[in-house]
């Protein structure tokens, strides 16, 4: 064949191949740590999204397209995440999922904003399932960013409401990871405690390097010597597990009020010491009363992934909300989906979730739970599980926080 004919044939074949490839799969990039000290956090969420995608695909997919969750390991490094983000965008992915690490989320929001401004028609959306620094739906809010987890101020509202009712707590110690999120948690704790219980003394405010401390004993010993009646921490991943391990070793039995006490291994590390000592605030726990469908889901998750427990309920909520929004919009393109997501509500297993249009922050009820033996579903393959505390159900209105977001929207 002549050169022109070969070239024409090649072009025709490649165009056919291209359109064939993009017809059926809707790829979503999952950019989070899949190895290293925070690898288990990322991995647990990754499989949650995959299971959620499988169920949606079984029910016909999203407007007929099958969801495929593609994992990109960022090792909790913002620089690495930007590299992975570019890789994802270059492979034609329009939906980015991330959560572990507000430092990473901040970088991604910025990068997505810039990309969308420079590439109209090729926009990408960012679904944030766990990075809970309040700024992302306040000063840094963006039309392209949706957050499916209650942010730090909202979670702190739940915790401080619980502390306010406890007269025996007079001294509180704050410990956190030294980056934007840890600082936000500490600031929220200080301001909310002074508002709800001005008599409480904050006897310590410690920030330690993120994912670097291997032995928390010196920190725990500091907490013990400060005579605190309760500890508040936003630590997650290995930092949470190791802190709890050190506290267990030192026999420290004051309440540890955490966001992420459910991190893999934390309950197993404390064992009996966790009962009525370790508390967490989450969007739902497996031992709440729920439908049979939900119980079946919890059990399926455990069967498929025996090393993990059903914890990332918001992964399932996020993908289902995305599915419903896309079906309502009749399209899988980012802008129509985003517009349909604004103000969307979803009847989740543990309450109604509403995506507030003003700032793209999901509003949902929160639950404070502690560890107990007498539960239906245990965690960490141990004999303990999470149980709702008395007065631990915080309705969405109580958890809600005001926003300072002034969002710029495309037409």
């Amino acid at each position, binding site marked *: 064949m002549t050169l022109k004919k070969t070239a024409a044939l090649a072009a025709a074949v490649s165009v056919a191949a291209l359109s064939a490839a993009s017809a059926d799969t809707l790829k979503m990039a999952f950019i989070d740590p*899949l*190895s*290293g*000290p925070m*690898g*288990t956090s990322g*991995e647990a969420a990754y499989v949650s999204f995959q299971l959620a995608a499988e169920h949606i695909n079984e029910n016909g997919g999203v407007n007929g397209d099958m969801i495929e969750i593609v994992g990109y390991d960022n090792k909790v490094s913002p620089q690495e995440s930007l590299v992975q983000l570019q890789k994802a965008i270059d492979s034609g992915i329009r939906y980015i999922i991330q959560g572990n690490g507000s430092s990473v989320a901040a970088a991604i929001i910025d990068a997505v904003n810039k990309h969308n401004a420079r590439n109209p028609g090729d926009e990408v959306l960012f679904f944030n399932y766990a990075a809970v620094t309040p700024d992302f739906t306040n000063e840094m809010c963006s039309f392209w960013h949706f957050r499916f987890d209650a942010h730090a101020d909202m979670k702190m509202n739940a915790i401080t409401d619980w502390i306010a009712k406890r007269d025996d707590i007079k001294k509180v110690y704050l410990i956190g990871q*030294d980056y934007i999120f840890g600082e936000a948690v500490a600031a929220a704790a200080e301001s909310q405690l002074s508002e709800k219980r001005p008599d409480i003394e904050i006897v310590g405010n*410690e*920030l*330690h*390097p993120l994912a*670097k*401390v*291997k*032995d928390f*004993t*010196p*920190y*725990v*010993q*500091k907490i*013990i*010597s400060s005579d605190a009646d309760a500890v508040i921490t936003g630590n997650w991943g*290995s930092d949470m597990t*190791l802190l709890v391990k050190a506290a267990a*070793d*030192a*026999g*420290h039995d004051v309440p540890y009020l955490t966001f992420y006490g459910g991190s893999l*291994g934390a309950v197993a590390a404390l064992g009996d010491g966790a009962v009525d000592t370790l508390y967490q605030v989450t969007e739902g726990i497996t031992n709440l009363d729920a439908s049979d469908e939900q119980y079946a889901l919890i059990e399926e998750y455990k069967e498929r992934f025996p090393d993990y427990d059903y914890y990332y309920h918001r992964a399932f909520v996020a993908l289902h909300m995305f599915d419903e929004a896309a079906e309502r919009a009749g399209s899988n393109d980012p802008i129509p989906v985003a517009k349909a997501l604004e103000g969307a509500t979803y009847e989740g297993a543990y309450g109604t979730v509403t995506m507030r249009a003003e700032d793209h922050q999901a509003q949902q009820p929160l639950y404070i739970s502690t560890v107990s033996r007498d539960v239906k579903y245990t965690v960490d393959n141990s004999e303990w599980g999470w149980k709702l505390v008395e007065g631990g159900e915080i309705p969405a209105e109580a958890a809600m926080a005001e926003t300072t977001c002034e969002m710029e929207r495309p037409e």
Partner: protein
Amino acid sequence: METIVFSLLNGTIYGLLLFMLSSGLTLIFSMMGVLNFAHASFYMLGAYFAYTISGSTSYWIALFLAPVIVGVVGMGVERWGLRRVHANGHVAELLFTFGLAYMIDEIVKIVWGRTSVNYEVPELLDFPLFTLYGAQYPAYRIFILFVAIFMLAALWYLLKRTRAGLIIQAALTHPHMVGHLGHNVPQIFMLVFGAGCALAGLAGVIGGNYLITDPAMAVQMGPIVFVVVVVGGLGSLEGAFIAAMLIGLLQTSAISVNASLADIFGFLGLSPTSEVGEITIASMAPMLPFLLLVLMLIVRPTGLMGDREV
């Protein structure tokens, strides 16, 4: 008072762990002039082997078996790897150990998975030994202390009081002469490399369940080990000991110091609300060993007791 006692205890244990790790490195360097980048990887291998062995048999068997296995692996690396590369000079050896470190990292991830494994403290030692100022102190840590001291004593005895130690010390400075006297110097090198790796492996067995056992262990411990060896002085075991204890105590004590930079430098006008002023000594603690490294290299490049420049 309590902080001082706790810092001393924890700092000593951490320092001894560091020494266990770096003694092997400094021995290897003194002997062969090879800076073994893969040393922390042998530490990681020791922890993982101990995890696997104690999973199927018991921790106590692992305590003896795992370092031996790591030592054998080290000997193999020396015999078939390093010796061949030796002819091409120091840089080639360095690159070889550098590549070895990456390879061991990936092999560990393939065999044991990318996330941490549950390497547990043996039940026999999993109880609080005593209570000090309201905090319990686990017995396992005191066990670490004893193992480290025992290893230190054994190493010292071996090097200073036995014939083998005499030959090793001689081969340290005069390898050719020792060779002419009829000793098998390549074999001595292989044994010393293996012994150095076995020491690192032992540190892994002891430290793996005290700290966390995951594929990032080597990368996290690696830099500190180099700091110890450089600060102590390349080629000096006593220097490594002093440096390890110094760094262990420094890093652990710094965590208990809540004074911020503004408190210390306030008289110079550093405001307590400025970004720099708010930094506390405690949050700087992990950085202090490296600060010490930089200072040492500026002030005294041969290290505390070394005889060679880096």
